[in-house]
């Protein structure tokens, strides 16, 4: 270990700093005469000295007001040998030390987010996509849901959704600015708009599932499934753009499942145990979407479930 590299993490808006040793010593402390200056009130003016001795590096503790931890354990000896990758805690600052030969992980594959990384998403692209997606959404809703031929309702609905997407993207941009110093606002806007459109395309599948099965329970589950899928994809991309998290897809999926679960429980917790009106699948789709078969009358009558026995 000829050269010692000390990684001092950044605070606030500052990024991390890497300090390379040039000769056999590195001094660390709050004082400005040190090689590594830490702005941490719990660190002494002269706190540590890194010493090179015969191709190995050692850390010496110069002041013991507060404990110094090496890899999580308090350092009691006046001098300890360092290995590449060791973690040192002084005051409230965590440092790590490396040598030049310290192994690094192979590069992570970007998968579908490679495009996002390779291209800077400009405002025109994002806004155009949002506009087109919004228009298609409103049109789709009008053509499939509007039994009173009222175009205003879908239009206002889409405007509201677009505003919500703009705010969502802004929140993630702020987070990205704080964590990665890169807001990527228009990238967030673009992915949010695209995912929202994806949901518009997929939600009818949930409706089809309910219609085909004549089960409102299945329809509800399918709707939640689509929502979880959409939310996972969206959060995965948001997290990728805004944070340095390693497992963005997994985190996003877990979070989405938890949120969906809580929403489901919350909505059904409100249900009174007694309901004066019947609960049944009322969804009717056009005949060409009826692809499952029909039962004979007697069969259906024979399968009619009796009223609950003990409610």
């Amino acid at each position: 270990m000829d050269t010692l590299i000390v990684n001092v993490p950044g605070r606030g808006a500052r990024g991390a700093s890497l300090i390379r040793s040039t000769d056999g010593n590195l001094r660390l402390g709050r004082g400005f005469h040190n090689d590594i200056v830490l702005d941490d009130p719990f660190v002494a003016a002269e706190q540590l000295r890194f010493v090179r001795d015969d191709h190995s590096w050692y850390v010496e503790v110069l002041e013991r007001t507060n404990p110094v931890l090496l890899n999580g354990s308090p350092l009691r000896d006046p001098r300890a040998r360092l290995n590449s990758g060791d973690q040192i805690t002084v005051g409230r600052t965590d440092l790590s030390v490396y040598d030049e030969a310290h192994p690094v992980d192979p590069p992570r594959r970007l998968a579908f987010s490679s495009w996002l990384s390779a291209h800077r998403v400009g405002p025109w692209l994002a806004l155009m996509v949002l506009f087109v997606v919004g228009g298609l959404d409103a049109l789709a809703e009008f053509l499939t849901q509007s039994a009173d031929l009222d175009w205003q309702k879908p239009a206002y609905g889409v405007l509201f959704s677009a505003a919500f997407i703009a705010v969502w993207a802004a929140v993630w941009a702020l987070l990205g600015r704080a964590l990665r110093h890169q807001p990527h606002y228009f990238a967030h806007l673009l992915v949010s708009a695209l995912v929202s459109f994806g949901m518009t395309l997929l939600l009818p599948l949930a409706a089809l599932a309910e219609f085909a099965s004549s089960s409102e329970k299945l329809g509800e589950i399918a709707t939640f499934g689509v929502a979880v899928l959409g939310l996972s994809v969206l959060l995965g991309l948001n997290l990728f753009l805004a944070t340095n998290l390693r497992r963005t897809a997994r985190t996003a999926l877990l979070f989405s499942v938890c949120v969906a679960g809580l929403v489901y429980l919350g909505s059904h917790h409100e249900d009174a145990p007694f309901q004066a009106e019947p609960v049944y699948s009322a969804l009717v789709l056009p005949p060409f979407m009826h692809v499952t078969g029909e039962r004979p009358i007697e069969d259906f009558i024979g399968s009619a479930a009796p009223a609950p026995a003990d409610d």
Partner: protein
Amino acid sequence: MSPDQTLRRLRCLPLLLLWLPGLCSAAASGASALFETLRDRVFQVRVVDIASGDKTTIGSGFRVDSAGLVATNFHVVSLLIHEPAKYRIELLGQDGLTRPATVLAIDVLHDLAILRGQQADGPAFGLTSGTPGQGERIYSMGNPEDLGMTIIEGNYNGLIAASRFERLLFSGSLNPGMSGGPAFDRHGAVVGVTVAKGGEQLGFLVPAAHLQALLRRANETAVPGDLKAEIARALLEDSNTFFDQRLQETWHRGRFGELSLPRDLSPSLKCWGQNTETKESDYSRFHQQCQSQEYLFLTEDFYTGDFSYSYEWLNAGRLNPFQFYTAVTHRYTHTSLENVDDAEQVTNFRCTTDFVRIDGTAWKASICLRRYLEYPGLNDASLVLVSLHSNRDAAIIRMAAAGIHRERALALFQKLMRAIEWTR
């Protein structure tokens, strides 16, 4: 005109000349005379909450037996029947004295009850064996709105045509509180028991014949049995009889849209039709619905006996298939029975929904059933069907019955589904 009346009229003439009022107007003094004679036979019936000592329900009743049997409506005393530990009955007579009473017999189908009053003996009303003439003057006594005993005059207008539970029409000014009171002719013979107010100068009476039958039953039983079980038995028997008739009859058919559907399923149902095609709705629909007009009172919050069916035809108009079926989805609803909203009386509905083949086409069908908790064998049942034969037209058919045996409900629904035919 009877000899009595003729004599009275002749006596009046000279007295009219002498202008001595008070001895004339035999018709006007009819009501007052009857009131004076009969008032001590009529009571205010009170259901009293034992805990607070205050009256919860009031109605009227009248002595039908000199030993102190008092007739009233079932709905006046139903609270006591359902919660005997919480309530008691009092009879308030014209002498200002209250007497305790107990329920001896009930007829839930005709909304009647016989009470046994303690120290309530005295002269009793007689029940008529004949029927008054249409339009004949009859009288009703009772305690409207707890204001005191009154007598009102009205006209007898006979048996309501095609009523399932037999009611007489009384064109008089009945009011709440008079329920259970007697309606009688000029001789004081009871024609019916006041049961409900129908509207302005419109009231309903239960024919005296049913009171006669109940009185016979009451006299045959010294001790009242389990009244709730009696209610359950009577309801089930009547329901089974009514629906067995519907199942056995051959249903007439009529054209409705492109369908041939059963019609006139029961004379006791009233039917209305409507065509709704407005500028606001971009699709058109017309419908026909038939509904029973009478209900059986079980408690203030629980009615039964409803039977209805309806047919609806929708056309897409300017809507595309998706828009049209969004509208159809909004219309694909079960009949709202709205007869009970109490978890202690009924279970939740349990529904079975699936696609069914009816006369060669696919229909989406849904059957929902819920059970009565205190009346074994009885359910509320509902069926709704929607056709899936066309992107531009749809038919929605509904049928619902409150207080029906499960097997009969399913048989009825099956009969209806089998009866649906396409005309083209």
